[in-house]
């Protein structure tokens, strides 16, 4: 049987997910030997523009160029896998989504209104094209991508994780930093798969694997942290750091800013 053709691509992001693939030093050569690699930007300058069986795409769609590129990749690939938070929900570059226009953001960051880069509001791939599988992480976990690829090669559906970090804390017996220490842990909202690395070290989860789509209860997190004495703005910013593109978090932000405007108007 012919080897499946693989392409690994980057849109807007730090390139950390491709780096994680390169970091799989013990398995990398054996794993890649199952494929004909047609594109692997961070691994080689070799490139061949052909139809692909699997495309792994990291990075968010943040420019018109990204979007054009993504559509081309989708067109020529049987299976499209979004790799990492950027490719799923836009990650940190999406933290002001739904809150501030791109023109305002350009003005704030670069001090100009001209759109030099043909920017789009940063979004994940699925906002624009059909995505077959999403592998979260900032960056992705080596084990997860390894398991996803071996599953696909074996002809199985890869395991998708849609439970929160709390599960992994309990399975590992880590004391709850939210319950025991009142730390502003985002574990209850955040997609697991990291084996609760940070709470295991006594640190609160900052949500780097993104909120669980259509499941994370952001309003409850806000209530819990408010009750623990955290500032509303701080909590919202924390939720937005990796979750700015998520509908529930956007709704919550809107509700709060409307309420604030109302109170200020009354004063």
């Amino acid at each position: 049987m012919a080897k499946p053709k693989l392409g690994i691509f980057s849109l807007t992001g730090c390139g950390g997910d491709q780096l994680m693939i390169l970091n799989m030093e013990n398995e990398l050569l054996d794993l890649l030997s199952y494929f004909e690699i047609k594109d692997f930007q961070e691994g080689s300058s070799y490139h061949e523009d052909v139809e692909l069986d699997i495309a792994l795409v990291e990075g968010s769609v943040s420019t018109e160029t990204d979007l054009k590129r993504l559509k081309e990749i989708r067109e020529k690939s049987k299976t499209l896998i979004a790799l990492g938070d950027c490719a799923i929900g836009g990650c940190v570059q999406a933290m002001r989504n739904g809150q501030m226009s791109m023109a305002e953001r350009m003005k704030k960051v670069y001090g100009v209104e001209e759109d030099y880069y043909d920017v789009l509001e940063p979004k994940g791939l699925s906002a624009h094209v059909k995505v077959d599988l999403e592998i979260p992480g900032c960056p992705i976990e080596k084990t997860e991508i390894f398991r996803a690829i071996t599953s696909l090669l074996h002809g199985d559906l890869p395991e998708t994780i849609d439970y929160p970090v709390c599960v992994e804390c309990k399975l590992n017996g880590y004391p709850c930093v939210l319950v025991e220490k009142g730390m502003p842990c985002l574990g209850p909202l955040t997609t697991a798969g990291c084996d609760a690395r940070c709470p295991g070290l006594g640190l609160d989860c900052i949500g780097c694997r993104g909120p669980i789509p259509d499941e994370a209860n952001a309003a409850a997190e806000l209530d819990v942290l408010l009750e623990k004495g955290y500032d509303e703005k701080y909590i919202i910013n924390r939720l937005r750091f990796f979750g700015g593109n998520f509908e529930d978090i956007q709704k919550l932000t809107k509700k709060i800013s409307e309420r604030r405007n109302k109170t200020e108007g009354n004063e």
Partner: protein
Amino acid sequence: MYKKLAKTEFPRFFEGLGNLGKVYGPVNIEGSTYEFREVQSPEEMDLKYTRTMIPPKKFFLGTKETMYTFDEEKAVYTPAIGKQEKTIIFGIHACDIHALKLLDKVYMDELMDLFYTMKRRNTILIGISCHPDEYCFCKSMGTSYATDGFDLFLHELSDGYFVRVGSEKGHQIIEANKPLFIDADEKDVEEFKMNEKKRLEEFNLELNVLGLQDMLDLAYESPVWQETADECFGCGTCNLTCPTCRCYDVVDYVGLDLKTGERVRRWDSCMLRKHGLVAGGLNFRPTRTERLRNRFNCKGSLTEGMLNCVGCGRCTVYCPAEINFVEVMKKVIGEL
């Protein structure tokens, strides 16, 4: 059989347990988090502990464990049975003993689970008396006292322990440590009885479980389910810290050769979205409200005559959303 172990003999008794296997006891990890950990000396334990975050079920049903390894080419699968070690769980509370009795029914009597059974048979359970805190409601659940399901049970006295023997293994331990144990005299028996009576008066939390199954049935449409689900993260902490919850999920991981691999199970939770997902994509409990109602109904239902809740309070203590199990139950059945 009732014996007495004097406080002065306790260290020697504990030391002797080390000859029978690995000894695990309650150790304080942080704040209200205790864990059964391997211990070498009594000083490492806190025998006045409230509850461990992770219940003793972890000894028999690994949080994450390999069940089988497989080789597709050779068409074989091999149960992953590691070295079987003798384990002594020291200082288990009555509620947790009741929970294990329930798990035994499910994992050994109904349908024998190889992995659970092997570990369970290699274990000695030594119970210890406790005092309730504001989250304990085992008295209401009828689990505040264990009559069986343990090998030895130690009840603290002013100058030692009043020891109840619950099994053949328990007798053997007493026999092997004969010089350390004396017969309990009248004064010891009186103290034991008095302590038990006093202890029952210490409970502040109560839940009326009479007709609970009917009350839950009748409350199927209660708005409390939705109100509670709005506060709930659906994070599974309540299930994972529950001594009677026993669902697990199974995943196959294939190796780099794409021929060999392993079948792994890990604790599951009915509060998680995929718990109700079946082949074909149907999810019979798609919303958090349905999942929450299901969990409370499960806890309020019976398995072979036993309630699926032993009143240990873990689900309330460790809930990051501070959802109070007893309070929700009372609201639902109209007692609050």
